[in-house]
């Protein structure tokens, strides 16, 4: 669970980098806090991301797109896939594999997580039009 000074530091970075109406911290005083963020891709599509904060920043936060996404062959992205950088879905929502455990440290900001997920969304859309898997564009970090 985030300490107050960490929460403040995260808020400051987000305030400085993003418009305030695209993110909101939710249920912060409960055991299941999360952050909801909107992400607009270069093609103009808007996705909602849910970043779960119960183990953040000690562990990599789970990030879900607020719906099930489908690959170019219309298969749901609901299972762990190395080529598509996804993990097990939950409640019908695709989970993005945005960080490798061996590169995770507790200094990584929510802003950086957000940027990496935005990047994933760009590559996802590139995949939809080219048919090439996401790892064709995104290198693995382990």
């Amino acid at each position, binding site marked *: 669970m985030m300490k107050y000074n960490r929460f403040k530091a*995260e808020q400051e970075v987000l305030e400085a980098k993003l418009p305030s109406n695209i993110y909101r911290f939710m249920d912060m005083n409960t055991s299941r806090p999360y952050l909801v963020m909107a992400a607009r891709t270069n093609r103009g599509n808007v996705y909602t991301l849910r970043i779960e904060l119960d*183990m953040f920043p000690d*562990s990599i936060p789970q990030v879900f797109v607020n719906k099930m996404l489908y690959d170019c062959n219309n298969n749901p992205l609901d299972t762990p896939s*190395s080529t598509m950088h996804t993990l097990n879905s939950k409640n019908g929502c695709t989970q993005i*594999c945005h960080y490798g455990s061996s590169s995770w*440290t*507790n*200094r990584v900001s929510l802003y950086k997580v957000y940027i*990496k997920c935005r990047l994933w969304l760009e590559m996802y859309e590139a995949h939809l039009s080219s048919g090439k898997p996401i790892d064709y564009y995104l290198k693995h970090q382990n």
Partner: protein
Amino acid sequence: MIVYLSQEELDAFAIDRAESLLGYAYEWEGEGVVHLHTRSLTHAFGEISGCMFSKSAFCTDVVEDVRWLVFIDEGCIKVGLRVDGGIQYVGFQMIPSKENLYSRSKGILEIRVLQNKHVAIIGLGSFGSQIAIELSKSGVGEFSLVDFDRVELHNLARHTCFIKDLGRLKTDAIEEAVLGKNPYAKIHKYPLDISKNRMELETIVSHVDLVICATDNNPSRFVLSQALFDFQKIGIFGRAFTRAEGGDVFVYRPGQACYSCMVGNIGVAQEEITNEASARQNGVIPAYVSAQDADAMVQVGLSADIEPICNMMVKLALVELSKGEASGISCLEDELVYNYYLWANRRERKFTNWHVLPGAGPMPTIMRWYGAHISRREGCAICSDDEILLDIGDNLE
């Protein structure tokens, strides 16, 4: 017949108001060895039968089926074995009382100092189990043992537990091992996952003098590091690198660099993966890795490979616990001043180009410890007094 009595228990019985009590005989079947106790042992062994402890020789008729009898009269102790309606007296030996149990270490270690020390061991795998036993051998008097896992086959080869322990909670099995070396140790058991039980962890850490951090993943170490910082407690972290090429030990002393500073300064190490299930759970093996590939990732060093790392952690713990007290280990206070120690184990991977031992002279070789000072990191996510400097991914913009 070899007979053992407990000095501590007999002393307690001697001043007790009761004239007699029914105790326990633990007999190694067919081995001609028996231990007689006034109270039942937490972890029983051998064949168990009754043993009558009495302050007069007259009340023995009361309990017919008791084989063993112990009489205490005016400081004179006699041990009798019932044979064919009569009593045959046998010789016996004593398990020394608390202050004398490890009196041989006197001068080398200040036993009385350690007796009053409380150490938490978080993670009772191949590291934590060995360290717990070593510290109890050294005379540490109180332990908080923390691990939610049970003893499983996959890692038994380098764990202190035995085949007979399969399925037991590690906290129970290691409690037995610690009490086996020091029956007077106080043990508190916490079969829980520290990442999911922060409050309990904080309570544990706040009560101890030192924490051995022997978990196998960074998320749990960050959690621990935060608790150590919050309660200003000494912590000793240890781990092995992949393929047992080496390992390292980090010491957190309040006011100095924390584990998070260390990771920030030297980066995330490639650690060995010893257990597929737990590595999957904490993401060390990503979910998309197939069972076959995961199997190849799990590469476990030998017990002999991790032993030197455990040994260093134990020595550092003893030095930290005896600091400021005159003891035989004080001389190490001048040696073990670093907060980071690197152990090179094999000339592989990052140590490939190191020199072979013969004729290496001052050149770096394996089978050696290298100490370093790691300084506090500005804006550390855990111990910074000022604002936290977050990684905002400049390279992504």
